[in-house]
């Protein structure tokens, strides 16, 4: 760090600040985008181009790897499983998490602080530690190798986030808005659906996407608890271990793209602040 003492230095310091700011933005964007770009061009290149050097920065639009992948046996099934499990996780974590968040925000009850701590503690146990007893339990109850069983585990992973996100969402909505709705002819229920729900919908959506992505990316529980009905991550882990490089790229691409599309589709809700960015 340089010492900036006189006022005369201030414009220089400000320019330096702008440069650092710009550089940081570029760096962070590159950090995210460059690997994605490489993934993209390698997926769309022929197997020979993938292994060649130097690499081309323009994709060749060779769909060979992808076609091969799509026709790979079990592949579409795994994709379908992943979507089913992630969707179930999304629904269950919101259905369970949002009421818990509402209760934490609106009511005072004994053990509230402890409850909040315990919710976070569910993330304190490493999954490998729980996997074996879970597997045994699932086999006994017949939940093993089912989408629902796996979604249960993923819901457990996603719920702390769902609860804490919705808790802060509900806390951000003044109770007066609900009260105003009551005086304007609403019952408790209609006040919730007409006032509270529209306001928290962006946050609920964000929270749901988060749950979806957690489930979509999760590989350990999926690999341990499913055999026939593998999700995409577990399936890829199993089959791509010895696969050639271009197939690994195609697999990675197929994993990343749905999550990206999903987040892109609902980006408005993630960024929107009412009245500011309603475009």
């Amino acid at each position: 760090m340089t010492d900036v003492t006189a006022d005369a230095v201030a414009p220089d310091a400000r320019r330096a600040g702008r440069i650092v700011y710009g550089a940081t933005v570029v760096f962070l964007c590159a950090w995210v985008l460059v690997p994605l770009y490489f993934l993209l061009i390698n997926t769309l290149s022929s197997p020979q181009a993938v292994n060649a050097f130097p690499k081309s920065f323009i994709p060749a639009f060779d769909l060979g790897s992808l076609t091969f992948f799509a026709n790979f046996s079990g592949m579409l099934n795994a994709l379908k499983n992943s979507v089913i499990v992630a969707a179930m996780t999304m629904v269950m974590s919101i259905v369970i998490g949002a009421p818990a968040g509402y209760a934490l925000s609106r009511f005072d009850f004994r053990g509230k602080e402890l409850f909040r701590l315990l919710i976070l503690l569910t993330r304190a146990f490493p999954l490998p530690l729980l996997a074996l007893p879970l597997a045994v339990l699932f086999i006994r109850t017949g939940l093993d190798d089912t989408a629902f069983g796996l979604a249960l585990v993923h819901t457990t992973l996603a719920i702390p986030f769902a609860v804490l996100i919705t808790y802060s969402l509900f806390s951000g909505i003044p109770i007066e808005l609900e009260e105003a709705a009551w005086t304007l002819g609403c019952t408790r229920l209609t006040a919730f659906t007409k006032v509270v729900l529209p306001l928290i919908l962006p946050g609920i959506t964000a929270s749901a996407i988060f749950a979806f992505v957690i489930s979509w990316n999760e590989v350990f529980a999926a690999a341990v608890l499913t055999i026939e009905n593998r999700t995409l991550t577990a399936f890829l882990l199993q089959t791509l271990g010895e696969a050639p490089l271009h197939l690994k790229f195609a697999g990675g691409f197929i994993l990343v793209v749905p999550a990206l599309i999903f987040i892109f589709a609902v980006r408005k809700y993630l960024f929107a602040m009412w009245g500011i960015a309603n475009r």
Partner: protein
Amino acid sequence: MAVIEIKNVAKTFGAYTALHDINLTIADQEFMVLLGASGCGKTTLLRIIAGLETASTGEVWIGGRRVDHLAPKDRGIAMVFQNYAVFPHLTVFENIGFGLRMQKLPNDEVRRRVERTAGLMQIDQLLKRYSGELSGGQRQRVAVARALAMEPDVILMDEPLSNLDALLRMEMRAELKGVLAESNTTAIYVTHDQVEAMSMADRISVMHKGEIVQAATPLEVYRNPAAEFVAGFIGNPPMNFLPATSQGGGKWAVAGELFDGPDRSAPLKFAIRPEDLRPAEQGLTATAKVIEPLGAHLLVTCEIDGEIFRAILDSDMTVRPGDRITLAPQPDRIRWFDPETTLSAV
């Protein structure tokens, strides 16, 4: 037509009593102000009338109908909140029309009423905007328009102007008074601002520690406070008090001067408003301490027998700190309070 009757309403929160046995009748189309310091129970009383809070005991009647078991929406009221509570996800138009839509009124009726009340509150240019794009004063107008559009029997307002800056508050005060006078609704208005109370109210209920100390017209509350608390709370600066001792036959000695008062022997407090004092040859002798020239007049803080005593004098007077001045109280403006009960002794 909506008379509001509050009968023996009390409210306790655990061991704390927020309201003691309130009885109050508010006439049809009356503008009633509940005035008091924070924590006096005025907002609790308003919320009980609105149905946002339930009374521990007692009854609330609106327009001859007992309402204390009804939900807020069934009471024929509309409310304006301190923080406006304008719905951020709806446009100004939909905010004002919210209650009308809940009543399932036809579209053109909603449009007609929204446009009329928006015009009344001078926000007809803003109907397409969202709350985030409005200033505090504009949000305030939306909140009032939303309540008026309901054409309620009763409009309840909880410190609606307290978040506005001083100039805007003065403007809105006059405007609100005009609009409400035309709307033929009964209004209950909660505030801690005595200027708002004095300037807007038909009647003021002064509240203190969960009780209504006095409910009367602004002038009556000002001229004839029912208790020492009211005399000290209303008026800026407040009333002056001095101890008085009975000399028999309705004569009272106050700081060495004799005044006519009630005929009784127990001690009383002598009270006079600062503006009811004139410099004179004979009267109360005071030592000036602080002189504050306020342009229109001179606020002189003095001391009489160790008690603070304020006088509002003509700004042409020349007074310096340390001067001894003689102040004559206007005889018909002198009030007497019982120090035991703190109530007016007349």
